[in-house]
């Protein structure tokens, strides 16, 4: 069964109960004197002295910060009420392209909450955090195998952080080769995600855009024309943000490698190819993996995630510190037949003098590592390959469904090639023929209790809809989505105004974003 709403209303004449319930902030629930937490007495022998005898009053606040004053039941009601004003993956299909909104297994939450993980202090002596270090090392090895690259750092906190790491590694690599001064450019295709060019600038490089060919891949002539001794790196997503695997991938990486650049693989779309193809085998030097995409870490309303990087031998010396080392002690030659004693250590800059240094505090988003490692253990090698197969099957099935009927007519595929785990449609015909925009289709989908696809990205597709169903959707839910889009288009043939004014049933209707940009109100006025 699909979770779709069968017949959503086409007007907002009767507001829903949620719509009648005006948004109230926690501060507006605050009543002086109410509280939730009880703080213990200090218990200091001899009793408490006034605080300003311990800290001079010029260093102290005059007035307490105006935090809410609320009881525990009020906090729970408030945030429960807020939660109901969110749509979420557990409520229905969430085919947000490039984001891999796959099911979040609850066993992962359970094992992440074990006190040995959740209450382990990051400054604990590594000798007394061996379970954590072994887990991280094992996850590194798994990602190394999946990516086809020998070395891994788990440190980056998200994909964009991995990109920045990759560019700093690139800089360190060129510095060691003596040509960092002349290699100032980074090539990115015009289909690249926004974080790619933003990371390039943060790393002190200049963005050079490479065109896309009619196949949806990198335009080889343009790439050749722009590749010279000034190129530091090429950043590529493959399959790219059109969901297309580049047919010339070996040639592309060859051209840049020949010219002395490094090769960066944006792994946001790894969910298409796990166990089928590996970035290392394609010729890449550096790969980031979004654990919150392919490896099931819940998206949390915008994080947390993690963006580990896997790298080639030539990049390895520069990896961020601290690094994890597995040390076998005791029977070094195994001559006495005993199992060697294994321990894990954290190694810093003393042991890795060429390292770019640290990218963040402590060892990384360990709680995310626990969840993703549990996911890899659950699926195993075969399971990961199967997950990718099903992701590709689901996307192609949904595309087949959306190539029929009105969707086929009004929302043609942007590049007519077999996609992998996601595909991009263009709403240009719907705009021309029905006078509704991609945005209107997206907003009307909300009334069907479905999350819209990613819209208006990639930029080179007019009125883009980028659809990634993932492997964890059922066929019914894919059918339900295709049916809903069909219904929206049929409705628009009759009356396009319905989509243009949508949504009608959500907690709030279309919001004045332009007003919020002109006159930003970004905190509550507490008087």
């Amino acid at each position, binding site marked *: 069964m699909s979770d779709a709403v069968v017949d959503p209303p086409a007007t907002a004449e009767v507001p829903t109960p949620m719509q009648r319930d005006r948004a109230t902030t926690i501060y507006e629930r605050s009543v002086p004197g109410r509280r939730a937490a009880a703080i213990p007495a200090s218990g200091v022998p001899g009793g408490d002295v006034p605080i300003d005898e311990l800290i001079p009053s010029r260093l102290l606040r005059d007035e307490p910060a105006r935090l809410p004053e609320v009881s525990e039941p009020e906090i729970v009601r408030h945030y429960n009420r807020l939660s109901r004003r969110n749509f979420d993956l557990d409520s229905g299909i969430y085919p947000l392209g490039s984001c891999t909104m796959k099911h979040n297994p609850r066993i992962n939450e359970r094992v992440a909450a074990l006190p040995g993980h959740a209450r382990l202090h990051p400054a604990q002596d590594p000798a007394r955090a061996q379970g954590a270090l072994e887990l991280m090392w094992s996850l590194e090895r798994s990602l190394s195998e999946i990516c086809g690259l020998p070395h891994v750092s788990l440190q980056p906190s998200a994909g964009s952080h991995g990109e920045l790491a990759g560019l700093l590694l690139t800089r360190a690599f060129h510095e060691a080769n003596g040509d960092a001064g002349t290699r100032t450019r980074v090539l990115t295709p015009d289909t690249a995600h926004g974080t790619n060019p933003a990371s390039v600038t943060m790393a002190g490089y200049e963005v050079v855009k490479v065109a896309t060919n009619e196949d949806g891949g990198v335009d080889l002539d343009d790439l050749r024309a722009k590749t010279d001794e000034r190129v530091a790196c090429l950043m590529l997503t493959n399959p790219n943000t059109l969901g297309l695997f580049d047919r010339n991938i070996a040639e592309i990486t060859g051209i840049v490698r020949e010219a002395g650049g490094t090769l960066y693989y944006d792994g946001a779309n790894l969910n298409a190819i796990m166990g089928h193809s590996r970035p290392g085998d394609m010729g890449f030097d550096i790969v980031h993996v979004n654990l919150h995409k392919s490896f099931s870490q819940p998206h949390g309303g915008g994080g947390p995630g993690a963006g580990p990087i896997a790298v080639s031998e030539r990049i390895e010396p520069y990896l961020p510190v601290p690094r994890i080392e597995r040390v076998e002690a005791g029977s070094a030659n195994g001559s006495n037949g005993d199992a060697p004693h294994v321990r894990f250590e954290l190694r810093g800059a003393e042991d890795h003098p060429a390292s770019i240094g640290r990218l963040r505090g402590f060892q990384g988003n360990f709680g995310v590592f626990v969840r993703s490692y549990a996911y890899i253990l659950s699926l195993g090698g075969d399971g990961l390959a199967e997950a990718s197969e099903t992701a590709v099957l689901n996307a192609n099935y949904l595309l087949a469904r959306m190539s029929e009927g009105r969707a086929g007519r009004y929302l043609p595929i942007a590049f007519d090639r077999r996609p992998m785990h996601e595909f991009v449609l263009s709403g240009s015909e719907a705009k021309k023929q029905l006078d509704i925009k991609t945005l209107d289709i997206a907003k009307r989908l909300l009334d069907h209790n479905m999350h819209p696809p990613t819209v208006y990205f990639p930029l080179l597709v007019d009125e883009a809809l980028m659809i990634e169903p993932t492997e964890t959707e059922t066929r019914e839910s894919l059918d339900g989505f295709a049916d809903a889009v069909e219904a929206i288009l049929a409705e628009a043939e009759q009356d396009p105004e319905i989509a243009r004014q949508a949504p009608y049933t959500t907690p709030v209707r279309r919001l004045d974003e332009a007003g919020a940009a002109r006159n930003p109100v*970004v905190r509550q006025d507490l008087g």
Partner: protein
Amino acid sequence: MSGYTSVTGDERREMLAAIGVSSVEELFDVPAGVRLDRDLDLPDGLTEAEVYERMRDLAARNADAESEICFLGAGMYDHYAPAIVDAIVSRSEFLTPYTPYQPEISQGGLQAMFEFQTAMTELTGLPLSSAGLYEGPSTVAAAGYLAIGATKRRRFVVSGGVNPESRDTLATYSAGYPAQVATVPLADGLTDLDALAEAVDSETAAVFVQYPNFVGAIEDLEAIAAVAHDAGALLIAACDPIALGILRAPGDAGVDIAVGEGQPLGNRLDYGGPSFGFFCATEAQIRRMPGRIAGETTDVDGRRGFVLALQTREQHIRREKATHNICTAQALNALGGMIYLSWLGRRGLVELGELLVRRTHYARETLAAVDGVSLLHDQPVVREFAITFDAPVGRVLDHCASAGIAAGVPLAEEYGNGLLVAITEQRTIEQIDRLAEVLGDGIALARSAGAKREEVTA
């Protein structure tokens, strides 16, 4: 081993027929040369119960703050996180959506961001707050990036009182920005103001301090702000959000950007993450802020609502001209922080801060009385302080660990031979007394072991 998929064999056949191919392989339009022609070399999948067992065994090999008495800090602290934080952040509606790009169905997350921003501006005394970045040290580096954009200068002056991990992170990022980083030492626990004045020049984009600083002392922000502002530089303070409950707000003392590690606000230790970084600034920086920001607005029917505001700063709109590259941040952790602040409430945060001050001063006096222990400085402290002693730190820590106590974080060489000791409301007076006892024994043992060794070598 389910892979969390649903497709049956029959369905697969029907779906392939609908697509018009006969096998899944045909769907992989991947050149032969880059196909993996073998299985991944990973173990077979496990049942859920087997996964649990394996992970439980790994977890059991960690000494966590539940199984020993934890005086570790240096940025993350063993505070009690109330049950409502877990209960609320594990609700599907908060746990499983992504970034609120569709505001009509994301009002819960957006409003929580707005509430969070309000709370952080209250704590820091600055009018702007982002909805959160990754964690503490990378947020310090993000502040540096803003300062370069705001001042068009490329030199940072950093106090030696800033957490070494934050300094390292800033240095890593600065290789790219690019920017130069100069460090000013501490004098008697505080940033050396004379050395600072000497180091800050007309090329300086920002001065970085920590509040309280890495060794626990409370910097005089106003005096430091005067030095920075005289040279046209911004003052960036990395702050402990719990301490901000009682300390003068950085915004009131001249700080331009207040950032910090959010873990102390109701987030798990999690061996270092995920937590969140907070980022607050003066109004002048509104178009340069990094990260998501929620703003209040109305819908077409005039209802109050929230959206992502000021998106023209961000990578998905501005690409190479974005003010930062961040996309996925740590929204759920920031929500946890907001729930925690609501739980503590206006009075609770002050009471917690005062409790920490009292117990920390008690702990410091108690440890100072231990034979062989000296204080690194005797400035006022809030929740953390540094001790030095003349014995190998590793041995002393091992002794304490064998008595079930994680006594502190070893000090970096630049500060001296000793420990950074952190107190939370979970550390009782009895535990502090026990620490003193065990630490004293540990130091005595380590010294006599050292003396014996010297005898042998002599």
